[in-house]
């Protein structure tokens, strides 16, 4: 009973957020695209035809074709109008339906983001727990130093080093592309290392806080081994702030994806977004931003529900 009501209220809250996000993101991205300097007809022509072929004539042709000389308001209203009918329009640059482009690119990005998140947790959880069990110990200090290092080094540098180590020298994995599951490993690892740099610290803090709680000591003195105490009590309590943090991290995850997609020639949405901004592909930018926003909302819903799952106190009060 309670569980179900929690589920629906969380869902309803996020549904409201989704609509807000859709409208806000659409308008903001549209407004900002309009504010960009430069003539969008030129940019679109450049995006389409490449520098050997684009010139003023092709720009003029693009302008007429896409109706870029229409008033701004008309363009926005028509976008919102088609959005209400779940139509995202067509890309100005490639001409293909945006929904279709997003479908492929989003799939690849989700795969990369998911794998990156998984890798980050695979790294951060053991490291964070180890560090949190002995705050101030040598492992804690070492992992802090490592965190700072991985936070300060740009993702592309990590990517290049990994490519060199795993693909060029040892030939264990392919460098770039997306032809099979093995192509996912390096980009996911690159992404995961960057994410783990921060999340391992969050886990460490949560664990060290749980470790100093009185119930932790009681669990030990009532006779449970330190392992059982960790697995039955500490981790569950520590998971709460960690899961909540993952919610925030998701936003940064989406951005990390951009660089990594570029380095590893991964056909994802972040890479597409950058091109769309440069190419002044307004419908594409709006569509991408919208998709990313909604993805964030959905993932946050999952985080919410996970928190409720971990913490029975919430269900009682909700």
């Amino acid at each position, binding site marked *: 009973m309670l569980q179900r009501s929690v589920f629906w209220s969380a869902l309803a809250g996020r549904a409201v957020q989704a609509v807000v996000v859709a409208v806000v993101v659409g308008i903001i991205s549209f407004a900002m695209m309009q504010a960009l300097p*430069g003539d969008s007809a030129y940019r679109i022509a450049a995006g*389409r035809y490449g520098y050997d072929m684009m010139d003023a*004539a092709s720009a003029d042709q693009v302008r007429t074709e896409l109706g870029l000389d229409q008033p701004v308001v008309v363009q926005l209203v028509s976008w919102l109008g088609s959005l209400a009918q779940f139509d995202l329009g067509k890309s100005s640059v490639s001409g293909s339906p945006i929904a279709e482009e997003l479908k492929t690119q989003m799939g690849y990005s989700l795969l990369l983001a998911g*794998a990156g998140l998984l890798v980050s947790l695979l790294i951060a959880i053991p490291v964070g727990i180890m560090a949190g069990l002995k705050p101030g110990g040598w492992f804690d200090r070492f992992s802090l130093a490592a965190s700072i290092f991985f936070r300060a080094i740009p993702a592309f540098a990590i990517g290049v080093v990994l490519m060199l180590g795993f693909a060029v020298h040892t030939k264990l994995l392919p*460098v*770039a592309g997306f032809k099979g599951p093995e192509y996912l*490993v390096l980009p996911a690892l690159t992404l995961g290392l960057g994410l783990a740099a921060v999340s391992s610290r969050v886990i460490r803090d949560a664990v060290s806080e749980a470790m100093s709680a009185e119930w932790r000591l009681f669990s030990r003195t009532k006779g449970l081994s330190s392992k059982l105490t960790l697995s039955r009590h500490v981790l569950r309590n520590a998971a709460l702030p960690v899961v909540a943090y993952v919610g925030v991290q998701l936003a940064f995850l989406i951005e990390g994806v951009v660089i990594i997609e570029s380095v590893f*020639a991964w056909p994802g949405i972040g890479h597409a977004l950058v091109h769309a901004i440069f190419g002044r592909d307004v419908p594409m930018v709006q569509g991408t931003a919208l998709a990313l926003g909604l993805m964030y909302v959905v993932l946050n819903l999952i985080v919410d529900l996970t928190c409720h799952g971990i913490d029975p106190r919430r269900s009682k009060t909700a």
Partner: protein
Amino acid sequence: MFKPLSIAILAASLFASPIAFSADKTSVKISAPWEINSYDPAVSGFAFHRLQVMETLVDADTKGVLIPGLATEWSATEDGMSWTLTVREGVKFHNGTTMTAEFVAKSLITALAKPGMLKKAPIKSIEAKDGKILIQMEKPFSALPALLTHNTTVISAPASIDAEGNAVAAIGTGPFTVDTFTPPQGLSLKRNDDYWGDKALLESASYLATSRAETRALIAESGDADLVFNLDPSGFAHLKDVDSVTAMADAIPRVVSLKLNASHKFLDDARARQALSMAINRQGIATAITRFPEASATQLFPPVLSEWHDKDLKPLTNDVEAAKKLLADLGWKAGDDGVLTRDGERFKLLLRTFPDRPELPLIATALQDQWGEIGVELEVSVSSYSEIPKGHKDGSLEVALFARNYGLTPDPIGTTLADFGKGGGDWGAMGWDNATVIDALDKISQTSDASVRSENIATVVKAVHDELPLIPVVWYQHTVSVAKDLKGYVVDPLERNYGLSKVSWGK
């Protein structure tokens, strides 16, 4: 949500990798920076043509000599006002449809309606007649067959386009057919066993657009791709030492040059432009940035464009003192901070360039320093390349740095006409209308007489060299990394064709 999927993938990847790396000697893998956004030949024709999915009516060999392609022969009427091309018989599109003159005409008309090379020719109409293509001109244009080698004129099947005119497939006639297409990075190809000419030696090929040069170099080294194009100088230097690949560089008719607004009040005197040219340390740029010291430009057209390159021309030099003197003659005096001033105005210019070719911002930064030496303050704006044609059109452009390909077609007249013809061109002269040059270019474009051509070409070359509406900086080198065991690969200096159908694996 991700977990089960990702775990499965990770697990799979651990087992899958050895298989994926087993030698697959019936296929060739290519990597290059260019993304393929669409099926539309106007947008992605370059890729479909290079990868031999689509073909042009006229072809060119590696020396730039025109040879029959989908047209077996072509000729112009005496007055040059009409061209007739005979369409090759027995050619089938990948979907099985036979290529007819009607289809070819339709394809060309579509291409003409979109931005592309055909626009450069004064074409009045295109029609199919008795299995031949008839092209009516508004005025004589001798380079039309050369234009028809360009990748925006590739012939695609009618089924490539849907009822609304959108390109929905890439159905060509080439030795390879599209197997899968994952825009914008991936394309995989299968051999076309019905090909009209020599069939491809390998069964399949795949293409991966990799925008980062660093990644491409690593891909070449690891063997993930057998043919890797456009290497960065650093990566190229490294690959020369890697045993498993051959790193090749070939001069191509692409030139990194500065476009100056000759109507700008600082630049309207040819001496000012000469001074700026003299301030450039081309040798340094060619050595340190592009890493081909022999390719520092001595004139606009590189030796590879043998018809347009004049060996006897006095090379452009680097002489800072002479440059300073020229500017002093023009009334410029050094101010307190070393920047020249005249009539209370500082000699300050804005250079526009773009990052798509990574060396351009570097060259711009070097120029900033070198022009600083003679007291010219250069601000650099790295943005979209579309800013250059736009700045040309609205007159706001001062200086632009870009790489111009004069070998888009075997005969560069189309390009030069656009660049130095009346009113200048988006990627050519600006505010520099030289009547002699315009006249000479017209003559070149209309004649087929070799001596008339070379005489007028010399006129154009000399005028451009003396007055410097464009200041050449370095000539381009086309860099390729080829896997050692890959046989039959030949560099195409026109960047038209990867020649995949002729490559094979051997020892």
